[in-house]
């Protein structure tokens, strides 16, 4: 009785804070399976209701990198927020690893658009925050944070405050913070949208490199076609509001992908297909707005 109560918390700690090797093993155990079935999301009531997402279906296999692409206001972020647990489904169901999503949780690592680091915490404290909140001791959380800061190449900035870093560095801290909880799925909501073009390219390469090491499931929201095609295994093109899935494009471009991909004929043809789909949808959206 006494011995078991002593051993129990230790066993839990080990289970929660695995080494990178354990994580890799766990990844093979099909962690990060996303299933969105017949999802509709309405805002407001009855006559004033705005349908943001309609009959949306999507299944993501563990370890897949999926981009949600669509014109602005099409409900891409709404789908992501439903998976994050911030928004309730009006109809249908969102599942992660067989469990219905009901509220936000550390099994989904969020990377926000910008300004989501806690400005009063140092870079290290920001990354350690997730582990600390999910039961790690202070020293465990700190050593985890140092590991992930190394992954994103910011070890030298551990003691700095976020507002002394550039936008690109802040987003890398954001990625480290999301990874530090060993999430089943990484949810990225236009994380590079606010960065200048040069930094954005570097961040994309950087992200792919980090991902190649962890192979988490990633759901990445963007309205940038180049970005979506460059990063993803699958690009999900969404319609103008209400958001529906109109095309699921598999990107079979070889990895690791470098700048050369941009001039690959396969890349260009996929890009043009996306461009046409998005343009048609944007035109539809304009027509809707003009009618209204």
């Amino acid at each position, binding site marked *: 009785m006494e011995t078991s109560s002593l051993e129990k918390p230790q066993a839990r700690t080990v289970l929660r804070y695995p080494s990178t090797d354990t994580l890799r093993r766990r990844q093979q155990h099909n962690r990060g399976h996303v299933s969105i079935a017949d999802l509709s999301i309405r805002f407001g009531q009855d006559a004033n209701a705005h349908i943001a997402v309609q009959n949306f279906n999507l299944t993501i296999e563990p370890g897949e990198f999926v981009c949600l692409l669509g014109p602005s206001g099409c409900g891409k972020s709404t789908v992501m927020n439903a998976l*994050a*647990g*911030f928004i309730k489904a009006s109809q249908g169901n969102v599942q992660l690893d067989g469990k219905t999503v009901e509220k*936000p*949780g*550390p099994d*989904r*690592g*969020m990377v*926000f658009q910008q*300004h*989501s*680091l*806690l*400005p*009063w*915490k140092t870079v290290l404290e920001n990354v350690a*925050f*997730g582990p600390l*909140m*999910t039961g790690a001791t202070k020293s465990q959380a700190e050593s985890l944070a140092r590991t992930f800061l*190394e*992954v*994103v*190449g*910011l070890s030298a*900035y551990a003691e700095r*405050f976020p*507002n*002394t*870093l*550039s936008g*690109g*560095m802040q987003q*890398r801290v954001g990625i480290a*913070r999301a990874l530090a*909880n060993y999430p089943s799925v990484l949810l990225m909501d236009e994380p590079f949208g606010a960065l200048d073009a*040069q*930094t954005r390219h*570097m*961040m994309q*390469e*950087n992200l792919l*490199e980090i991902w190649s*090491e962890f192979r988490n499931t990633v759901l990445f929201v963007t309205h940038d076609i180049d970005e979506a095609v460059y990063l993803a295994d699958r690009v999900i093109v969404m319609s103008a509001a209400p958001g529906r899935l109109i095309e699921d494009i598999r990107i079979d471009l070889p990895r690791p992908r470098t700048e050369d991909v941009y001039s690959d004929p396969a890349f260009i043809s996929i890009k043009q297909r996306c461009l046409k789909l998005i343009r048609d949808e944007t035109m539809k959206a304009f027509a809707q707005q003009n009618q209204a």
Partner: protein
Amino acid sequence: MRTKATPAPALVLQGDEIAAGFTTSGRPHAAADTAAAMPINSANDSAIPALHSRPAAIKKWFQQKGRHIAVRIFAIILAAGLWQAASANEWNFLLNFENIPTPVTVGNEFVEQLQNPTFYTHLGVSIKRILIAYVLAALLGIFLGVLMGRYAVVEDIFIPYIEILRPIPAVAWIPLSILMLPTEESSIIFITFLGALFPIVLNTLHGVEQTPSTLVRAARSFGASDRAILWHVIIPGAMPSIVAGLAIGMGVAWFSLLAGEIISGQYGIGYFTWTSYQMVEYPHIIIGMLMIGALGTTSTALVKLAAKPLLRWQSDKGSR
């Protein structure tokens, strides 16, 4: 361990380092500080440049800071000089200086008062009242402000009281507090407490309501409980506003204390000032006033100084 060291992340780092360098050394003060400090450091390495760099460093310091300090000291000396001239010549046009002692007289009286134990009793009593009232106001004010910011019901309950009671000046509270509270001492502390309370409550409330919802969402998504969000997100986010409220509250506390002390009580710097008028000890009026000013400024500065470590993340930003 990371085995692949591709040039890509290194490149990003470089670009970002340059950008980061801009943000930190871009602020004029930091740049000036290092520029001023550098010649002194290099002076230790070789003796020859010391001849040139030391005066250069002093010159730089004067241009950055010394000049402002010099102007400020000069402004005070100028005012004291004008006052001396007006009092000594019994100036009586628009303002009447006939009954006003000269700064020299006030200075002499002040030195005398410093040897008088009663003077210290007055100061001590005032400081004690401020301490009790202010600590109570800070604790209750922050507590109430956070609750009001977090729960609409609490805000709805307390806001009407605050809006009605806040504009009532401390002096107007004196009769009622004498009637309601057991001792004169407790009425003075109560009035001081009320004065400090309102700015602290309202600033805390404002700060809590200003906390960006993105940060709360982010914290929640990383597994933070409601309590953790309060301690790690809401309160630190409201801290600049809370500190502003605490600083304003300290000023108002002195203001209110003086009102209380002038009308009732047997000790205190306000009592000292007012009785000096009644006893025709005019230099003491000015000593009392200047002591109030000095104590008010010092205590507000102490509040800000004490709060500085909590706002370190802000001051590192470089902008004021």
